[in-house]
Structures are given as C-alpha cells and as structure tokens.
C-alpha cells in the first residue's frame, strides 16, 4: 500500500489517550473493579523441584472471608503454554520452580486471601534441582517433565526429549568445506542471563461469569484474541462463550501475550458466582512470570584474510525455565539473528530451549534476539581487531544489500543496513581518532521482522458524521493505535486525528487482530484501517454521487466535505451524507489485511516456527563509553541509534519506540539480571533488580532512516522491538575498545569490567 500518504502522516500529532493519561483518569487493569468483586491470591511453592505428597486446605478455608480454595485436584486437565501444553494451572503431583502456584484462593478482601494462602498446607518431598542448562543436559540429569512425550504439541516443533523443550536448526551451504579452507576461524562463547519485562503495571485481570456460563474477562493484555483462544484451550470453554475486554495497559513488552492471571480468575468466578480479581505483586511478577530466556551462545566463524565472512556455525541453548510458554517459537528467531544481516556462503546453526527449575520463560520485546546478537556482534569486533580491519569497514564489507538472500534464503528487499551504518557512524564521529585512555566507541548492527498475520477494522460513520475506528488492535502504550493507526485512518477520511473516535481491543465488539506483538500493529492494523476507510468512503461516494448526479469515482473527501474532483462547487458535507446514510441505518466500512507469508527455503530449516523475517528492517547502534580504571565503572557518554522505519508516520512516537527500546537494551547490557540460586530468584524487587533511570542513561540520539517497504502503510515498517537488540553488543564493543579486554557475559557490571582489566587480554 504505497499510495500517496495523506497529510496527517509524517506529523507528530498528539495521541488520543494522552489527556486521560496525564490527568490520572486513564483506567488501567489495576484500577478496574466489578460490583461484588472478590480478590484472588495464589499459594506458591517454596521449592524449586519437589513431589507433592498432600495438600490440606482446611485451615485456609477457615479464614473469615474466604469463599473458595482450589488445588491441583480441582483443575485436572487444565494445561497452559500455547505450543507445548506442559504447564498445569495448579500443580498436581509436582512443582517445578519456586513460586509455582499450588492453590488459588478467592476471598472478600486481599488480606483474607493472603492469609489463607499462608495456611494452605502442602507436604513436599524435594527432588534434585536443575539450576542451569548445563545441569539439565547432563547424561544423568533428572528429567523435569517425565511425561513430556504425552503433551499436546503444535505442528513443526521438534522435540528430542529429556530436558530439551524444542530444537530448531538451519543448514545452508557447505560449512565444513569453508571452515577447512578459511584463512581464519574464530570461536567464542557468550553468556546472557534472564531479564524481565518489568512493565510498571504487572499482570492483573478480572473475570465474571453470567448465568448462561458466558465468561467476561477484563485484562491488562496485549492480545485479546489470543487470550480468548488460550482460555478456550486451557479451560475447555467454547470460544463463543468467552469475551475478553482489554483495560488500560501499563506496559507489556511481550509479558502480556499469553494467559496469565485470567484462568485463575475464571475458575474462581465459576465456583463462587462472583467477579474475581487477581493482581500479581511485584515479587510475584519477578519470581513467577515469563521473563526473557537466559542463553549460552557458542559460535565459530570462518573468515577470509580480507575480512569476508564465509561461514558460521552456532549453538544457542536458551534456558526456558520449567515450562515452554513461548520458547518453541523463540528458538527459531535465534537462527535468524545469530546469522545476522550479513552475506554468508554457508550456515549451520542449532538452537534449543532447555527445561530448568526456574519460572517458565516467555516473550520479551524481540524475543531470542539480544542474546544471539550480543554474541554475533561482539565476535565481529574480535574478528575486526585481530585482522586489523576497522569494525565499521568490516560490517560495510559484509552487510546484506538489496537482492541478497537472508539466512534461510528469503530474498531481501528495501535493505537499509548500509544507510543505518553510515548514519550512525557519522553521528558518533566514528573516524575521529581514538577518544583516549579508557574511552572507547562501539557499533552493532541488527535486523528484525514486522510480524504479519491478520488484522481487521471497521470504520463507522455515526448519524452526525462522527467517524469511529473499531479495531481489534491493542494500545499498549507505544502509540501505534492512538497515534499511528488513528493518524492513518483520519488521514484517509480527510479529518483531523483528534476528531476520530476509537473503540479497540475487545473480542465482544471489535474484529480480529493478531495482537500487539512482533512490531506489527502500525503496519498491519494500519493497513486494515486503510481498507475499512476505503470501503466506507466508497459507500459514502455512492450516496453522494446519486444526490449530486455524478459518478462516485469523480468524488473525493477532505475536511468534512465530499467534492467533485473537477468541480468543487459540486459538494456535500459529510454530515449531509450521514443524514442520508442514517436513513439506511448508518454506514459501516469493513477492512481486513493479511500479508502473504514471506517465501524462504523451507528445506534449510527444521523445527522453526518462524522461518523468515517479514518486511525486515535494519538498524545500527553506536556508542561512546568511558571506563573508570579504578572501579571498572562504565559511563555511557553517548548513545546513537540509526534505525530504518520505512516511513515515519508519527516522528515523536516513532522516536519514542527507538529511545524506549534502546534504554531497555542498555538495561540488559549494564544492569539487569535475574539472579538465581538453586532456581530461587534472589532479587525479586526493584531495589535489587536494577532498571535504568535518568541518572544512568544519556540522551538517546535517534536517526530515523526511511527506506520504504512494499506493503506497509505508505512504506512503513515495524518499529517497536528492534532497538532493544543492539545495546549489549554496542556497549560491550565500546568497553573492549576502551580497555582492550573482551566482555563475554552480561550484564557489563563494574565488577565484571574491573575483573577483566586484571585478567588476560590485549592492551588497547
């Protein structure tokens, strides 16, 4: 859809939910309530791995105000995790991570529910704890899911068994021959810990069940239609008896894409006949909700003397925790991102998700990518250094360009990597001579997808000519819906975006959308909105043409008027048409959009749920650091992101995605790590799990590069996730430039840098 953009596009118009948010009137999940509502709370396992011998709820039920206490025996057959159904709603015979729910309580007050949880008596028999991927893969390792072979599995996923959740692989070209003949082979191993989305609003939901058994859920969620399907699958409720309404969402970042609190609310509501609300505390968020997988990344790269990349072999073992959640999908992203946006003659990559006794991992903004890219881009700098080639030139030399093939054989179009490299390097003054002692610069390059899948929209014209966009897309804060899609839709209707009304994200009232995931909303929901606006306009033009005595094709609409293209005198106001249209019961335009899947060489991969990047986009990060030689402390002096967004719809919110993603990535690079001991999270709060603040990060300098796509609205590409991928490698490379010592484990803490300064390495 590369029709000329309306004049609303490319402007930093305000977002439609801005006023309510700055005044505190916006209603989030935590603020919602229903009359007669009970409070839920989950009793959780204190053990990382144990058999459950008995559960006694007598004392819990005796707490005044407690209405019901459910255990694993009440939830038989209720299994979660979307791709490998391995996660009981409430543990029945064993617990597999500390914090796993063993009982669900509903009570009149939060205090009563909490007191009851403390009184649920569970007798455990501890089992050996698998606290790392390495332990999980040992020959004599305890198998965390002895019944793994009996679980329902979605197609494509390859499961070798034992503690391996899933295994994806990529084979292209003759890696063995290239490694044999290459001038140089580099081999490195990198470690990345689990990190958390840490949206400021955690998971929270309310469920209510009516007399006919219809379930209504209100949830702070990113994907209401996926949640409805999850609920149906987990609780065996027909889809048509479930309605999901999304409340205000206080951040998601991938953490609210799957069923979480909702099924508990529903089973408790079914038992009590009352609405039930469940809100996770910050500690529950940190110990028991799906963070980003940790990973061990090993890679070997064959390189010619002139720096030409020839072949790469790579292995990523992702730590999935005790349940699969989204890991079977994420492993395939590792294939694409460990190859990176470079020309290869051959690739051989294996990525696996591994069960351990930690909370099950899920999706976090660009799932699977930062781990792989930290490794790949760090190793590129080692290669550059050892071959005496400038890291920028090495990247320019190997960067993919238009018409090249991606790692799985997809044909790459509208490629912008070189543009972003040059823009970022110029901005950071890459070639200006060494910044000085213990100062350094670093680069990293990334590529990422714009997820496809269906989006639908209606555009309704009310009796007074007011336009209402009805979209299944979800506004999770990015502005993709309340700024971007609104701007696109208003532009197509020829009105000021501020005059557009929006109804969104409610399976009861809005049409299907694949959710706020995979950087897709602006592009896919935007295309659906354009189609719906087109449909509505053609209906309006038919009505106006009959009235004006001309052809519908001769009409255009702007500023609330429908006019003849050649004779502006011949016109009707939208409200006039609305009155005419109103006699027919109002007007409704309908639009759907689903991009055809991107072709790739399907024979090159196995076990990969995602085989290609749809509308890929590219970015380069560049930064400058100084290191305190006495303490190892790293100061980020400058941070630059040049990212291709295809076409800027709203510069301010587009930049906001880039700066926000970059700062989360800086958090992963420098501060964030879920610290486990024996499966237990040692830092389940914001005091000990450090998020970046205004005193930790510089102003993020953004450069929006525009190399239009063929199918996004006016050429737009996905924006939201990509900027989180680049920071760990860019910062590690800058630190290495400053100190001469490599960093192969995240986060890059002062202690780690201090130790590296004293360890083996090359002088800078």
């Amino acid at each position: 859809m590369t029709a000329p953009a309306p004049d609303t596009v490319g402007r930093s118009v305000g977002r439609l939910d801005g006023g309510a948010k700055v005044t505190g009137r916006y209603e989030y999940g935590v603020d919602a309530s229903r009359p007669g509502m009970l409070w839920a709370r989950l009793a959780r396992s204190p053990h990382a791995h144990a058999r459950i011998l008995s559960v006694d709820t007598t004392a819990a039920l005796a707490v005044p105000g407690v209405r019901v206490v459910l255990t694993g025996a009440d939830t038989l057959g209720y299994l979660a995790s979307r791709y490998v159904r391995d996660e009981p709603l409430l543990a029945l015979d064993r617990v597999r991570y500390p914090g796993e729910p063993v009982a669900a309580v509903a009570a009149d007050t939060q205090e009563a529910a909490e007191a009851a949880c403390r009184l649920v008596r569970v007798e455990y028999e501890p089992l050996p704890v698998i606290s790392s991927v390495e332990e999980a893969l040992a020959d004599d390792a305890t198998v965390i899911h002895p019944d793994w072979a009996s679980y329902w599995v979605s197609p494509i996923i390859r499961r070798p068994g034992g503690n391996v959740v899933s295994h994806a692989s990529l084979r292209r070209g003759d890696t063995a021959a290239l490694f044999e003949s290459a001038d140089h082979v580099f081999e490195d191993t990198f470690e990345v810990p689990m990190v958390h989305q840490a949206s400021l609003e955690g998971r929270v939901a309310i469920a209510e069940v009516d007399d006919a058994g219809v379930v209504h859920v209100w949830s702070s969620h990113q994907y209401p239609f996926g949640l409805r399907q999850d609920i149906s699958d987990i609780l065996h409720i027909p889809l048509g008896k479930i309605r999901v309404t999304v409340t205000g969402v206080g951040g998601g970042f991938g953490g609210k894409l799957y069923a979480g609190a909702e099924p508990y609310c529903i089973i408790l509501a079914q038992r009590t006949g009352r609405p039930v609300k469940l809100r996770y505390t910050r500690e529950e968020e940190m110990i028991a909700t799906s963070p980003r997988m940790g990973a061990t990344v090993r890679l070997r790269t064959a390189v010619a003397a002139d720096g030409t990349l020839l072949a790469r072999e790579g292995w990523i073992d992702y730590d999935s925790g005790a349940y699969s959640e989204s890991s079977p999908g994420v492993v395939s992203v590792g294939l694409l991102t460990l190859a990176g946006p470079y020309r290869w003659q051959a690739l051989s990559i294996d990525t696996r998700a591994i069960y351990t006794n930690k909370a099950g991992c899920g999706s976090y903004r660009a799932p699977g990518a930062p781990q792989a890219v930290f490794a790949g881009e760090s190793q590129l700098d080692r290669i550059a250094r050892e071959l005496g080639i400038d890291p920028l030139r090495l990247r320019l030399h190997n960067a993919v360009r238009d018409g090249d093939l991606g790692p799985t054989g997809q044909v790459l179009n509208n490629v912008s990597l070189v543009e972003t490299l040059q823009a970022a390097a110029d901005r950071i003054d890459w070639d200006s001579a060494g910044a000085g002692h213990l100062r350094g610069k670093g680069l990293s390059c990334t590529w990422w997808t714009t997820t496809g899948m269906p989006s639908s929209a209606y555009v309704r014209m009310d009796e007074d000519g007011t336009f209402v966009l009805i979209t299944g897309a979800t506004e999770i804060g990015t502005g993709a819906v309340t700024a971007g899609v609104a701007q696109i839709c208003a532009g197509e209707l020829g009105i000021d975006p501020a005059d557009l009304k929006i109804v969104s994200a409610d399976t009861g009232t809005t049409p299907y959308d694949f959710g706020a995931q995979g950087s897709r909303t602006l592009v896919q929901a935007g295309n659906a909105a354009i189609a719906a606006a087109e449909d509505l306009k053609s209906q309006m033009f038919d009505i106006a043409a009959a009235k004006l005595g001309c052809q519908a094709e001769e009409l255009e609409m702007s500023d609330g008027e429908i006019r003849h293209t050649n004779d502006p005198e011949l016109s009707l106001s939208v409200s006039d048409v609305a009155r005419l249209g109103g006699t027919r019961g109002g007007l409704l335009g309908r639009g759907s959009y689903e991009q055809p899947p991107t072709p790739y060489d399907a024979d090159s991969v196995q076990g990969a749920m995602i085989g290609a990047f749809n509308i890929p986009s590219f970015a380069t990060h560049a930064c400058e650091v100084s290191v305190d030689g006495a303490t190892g402390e790293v100061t980020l002096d400058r941070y630059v992101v040049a990212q291709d967004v295809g076409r800027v719809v709203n510069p301010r919110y587009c930049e906001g995605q880039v700066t926000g993603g970059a700062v989360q990535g800086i958090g992963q690079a420098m501060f964030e790590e879920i610290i486990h001991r024996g499966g237990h999270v040692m830092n389940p709060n914001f005091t000990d799990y450090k998020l970046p603040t205004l005193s930790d990060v510089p102003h993020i300098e953004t450069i929006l590069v525009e190399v239009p796509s063929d199918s996004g609205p006016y050429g737009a590409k996905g924006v939201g996730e990509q900027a989180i991928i680049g920071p760990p490698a860019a910062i590690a490379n800058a630190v290495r430039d400053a100190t001469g010592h490599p960093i192969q484990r995240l986060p890059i803490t002062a202690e780690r840098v201090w130790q590296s300064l004293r360890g083996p390495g090359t002088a800078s």
Partner: protein
Amino acid sequence: MSHPLRLTVNDGEYLVIAAAGAYLLDVLRDDLGLQGTKEACAEGECGSCTVLIDGEPVDSCIYFAAQATGKRITTVEGLGRNGAHPVQRAFAALGAVQCGFCTPGFVVAAAALLQRSPNPGVDEIREALAGNLCRCTGYNNIVAAVLAAAGSQDGDA
C-alpha cells in the same frame, strides 16, 4: 486497629477510617477513590506513587497516612484543576507519555521541581526525576517535556 484520620487532599477535607499503619497510597486509592496515583513496586523504588506533601514529593507507598494529617496532600488529580498544569500539557503534547503508568508520578514530581526551580537545566531535571522509573519512553521526551513546561510556565501555573 482503625483510626479516624482527617486528611487535606487537593484542597478538600476528608475523614477516613484507616487501619493503623495504612499507607497513604492505599488510603488515596481505596478509600478516597483517587486512583490516578499508581503503585508499581510498593517499596519506594519507582516513584509511580509520588504525591506532594506540603509541596514536597514523597513516595506514598511507604508514607503512613497518619503522617499526612495536618498537611497539604496534592495528587495528580489535584494538579490541573484550572485546566491541565503546564507539565501535564507538555507531557501529553511532547511524547512523554507511552503506557502512562509512570506519568502521574512524573508529572507530580516535575510540578514540584518547577515550583522550587522555575527554569531548571537539563542536569537539574535529570537529577530531580532520577527517582522515577519509566520503562517505556527512554526518558528523552520526559526531559524535553519538563523543559518545555518550564518555558511555557510564566503566569500559567
């Protein structure tokens, strides 16, 4: 044990029966229905629950309601009674709001900053707001909004 507390919130007088040891945040949200103030950590680390006590920002999640008697409490709902406060307008206009969950805390803290320092520099803004976490924006636009609000403030606040 519960106690009657007399609180002055956004210039209104309230009498609430609060449990001994009740935090101001819970009294504001649950007893007074002022849900604009948010909780994200409940331990004084994130600033989402920031309110003003006699004009000074405090984390209401670790501030006892009983401590607030006899003092002037201002919440996000009380900032913009004569049309939105310049800080609120700037946040909405300049992209300082994404999910918005941190926003009430930020605008309250920023309003207090501008009250004591009407024309702060970038470093002063960064320092004053370093106790407020935002997971969405990356902070660029928050700093820009506070600067813009300072510039637009004269006679407006």
